């Protein structure tokens, strides 16, 4: 178990704004994904855990061993922390062969065990044939595996990966993911993974930390995050959400429903909504729905909103149709040509089923989502 509760402040310079990292979280064995835009403090968090950066205050505990404690003036040097760190550019030693790279890391093991351990990892990461090569003779994927192997040689107590999939193509990415799953299965250690790729985030994580501007906005299991993002900001950062501002028109607690006006165009559109806890008539609320939950129709009906097709993009599994105004819909590829033909002839309506709309809390002090903050993916 890794427990972090640290603060690190960078004062504003003439060219740069100030930045404060506030990283408070726990990570059990399993994969914890640090997700958020660049510059939000994800890598800085890893650097603090590994001991490369000294936080201003707080504590870091790893299995009840104190790595850092500002109160007790404890700051273990990186070499004593037993953190496996996989760097963004792999950081393999360019002047050493792959085997020498691993041997460098095995130096702390008992002499007799070193050779066996190196052979074991070369084998497990399918790089045994490449052991005599230098890093510049390896492909990106091979370097990646070598660098993970090296970080695991000395039996680390936590594994930190800084955007490991950067620069890898889809196939290598999938390889990496299965490798990470295998590591998770075989080693009961916390694995912290920095990424800003949502698929990686939700595909790999046991726990997700959503970062923005040095803060952790939300910490949850990925499914829970998708079902109930903690705030409009979180929904925007995860991407793939349609987020609406709505006005409560009527509430029916008995039948657990409501009537809301979506403020997506002038005057808004009234539709049936979900049960809204703790709201009154006239309240403004934020609601969200995922693109795959909306349906495209070509005639008006219950809970349907008139829309104009802006553009349609081919995706691997589906067509993503963007109707503007936070009406992004994923629809099966098979039915699309026919649907498009009738939509262009008869006009478009988007059906927002009442049950799919979920209320999200607006983060205090934040501006409401503007049009250009629409989901990216």
């Amino acid at each position, binding site marked *: 178990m890794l427990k972090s509760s640290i603060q690190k402040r960078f004062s504003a310079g003439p060219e740069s704004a100030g930045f404060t990292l506030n990283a408070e979280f726990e990570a059990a064995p399993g994969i914890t994904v640090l997700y958020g835009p660049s510059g939000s403090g994800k890598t800085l968090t890893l650097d603090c855990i590994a001991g490369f950066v000294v936080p201003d205050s707080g504590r870091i505990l790893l299995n009840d061993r104190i790595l850092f404690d500002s109160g007790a003036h404890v700051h273990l040097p990186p070499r004593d922390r*037993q953190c496996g760190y996989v760097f963004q550019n792999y950081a393999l030693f360019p002047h050493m062969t792959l085997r020498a790279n691993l041997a*460098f890391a095995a130096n702390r093991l008992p002499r007799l065990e070193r050779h066996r351990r190196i052979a074991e990892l070369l084998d497990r990461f399918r790089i045994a044939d490449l052991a005599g090569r230098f890093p510049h003779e390896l492909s990106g994927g091979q370097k990646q595996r070598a660098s993970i192997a090296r970080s695991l040689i000395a039996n680390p107590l936590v594994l930190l990966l800084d955007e490991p999939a950067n620069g890898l193509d889809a196939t290598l990415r999938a390889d990496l993911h299965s490798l990470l799953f295998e590591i998770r299965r075989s080693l009961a250690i916390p694995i912290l993974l920095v990424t800003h790729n949502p698929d990686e985030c939700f595909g790999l994580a046991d726990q997700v930390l959503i970062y923005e501007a040095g803060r952790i906005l939300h910490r949850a299991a990925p499914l829970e995050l998708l079902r109930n993002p903690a705030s409009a900001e979180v929904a925007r950062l995860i991407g793939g959400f349609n987020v609406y501002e709505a006005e409560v028109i009527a509430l029916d607690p008995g039948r657990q429903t409501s009537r809301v006006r979506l403020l997506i165009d002038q005057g808004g559109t009234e539709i049936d909504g979900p049960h809204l806890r703790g709201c009154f008539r006239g309240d403004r609320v934020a609601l969200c729905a995922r693109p795959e939950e909306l349906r495209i129709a070509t005639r008006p009906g219950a809970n349907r909103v008139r829309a104009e097709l802006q553009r349609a993009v081919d995706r691997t599994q589906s067509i993503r149709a963007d109707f503007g105004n936070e009406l992004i819909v994923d629809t099966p590829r098979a039915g699309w040509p026919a649907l498009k033909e009738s939509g262009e002839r008869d006009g478009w309506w988007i059906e927002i089923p009442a049950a799919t709309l979920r209320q999200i809390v607006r983060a205090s002090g934040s501006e409401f989502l503007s049009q250009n903050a629409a989901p990216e993916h």
Partner: protein
Amino acid sequence: MHIDWFPLWLSLEVATAATVISVALGLALAWLLANREFPGKNLIDAIATLPLALPPTVLGYYLLVVIGRSSWIGRAWEGVTGSPLVFTWRAAVIASTLHAIPLLIKSSRAALESVDTACERAARSLGASEWRLFWRVSLPLASRPIAAATVLAFARSLGDFGATLMIAGDIPGRTQTAAIAIFDAVESGNTLTARVLVIVISILTGAVVYFANRLERKRVTR
């Protein structure tokens, strides 16, 4: 016509000794300047550069003050070894070292600072001590520019005149280095000796500079 080769051999010996000392001391200082923050760091950096800028005779004068027979160091040396430090080949080594070391400090510091931080961090998090990190990672990765600087430092110590003359003197057969012998030969009208020494030194230095340039060029293309 007889040519005295002693000054040339003495120069080579003095330059070799000065280079060895410069590398050991210069690397240590360069590592400190590149990796550690301490009070007076900028002052040390400035002092380390000074010998590059000062006239050699000024440098020699300071040396006389610091290690001359009446100085603290000079007296201590004389007490231990029984003979003075100044006006010996050892003094020439000291002068040459001082002449050459700024080059090594400057280049080595830049080379050490240009080593990929991620590699150094990786070594640390893999459990390496600072000592192991230096010998196994930082130094090998910075070795080319440092080697080039070493070669140039050798050339520079080979050519020192002013400081060496001030502190080691011009004692034929004892402290007369090639640079000083050339001056003497020209002064006394011994044209042949002067010419031969000039040609040998030129070829030697030319080879050294060519070698240093090759070392540096390889680093760029790697």
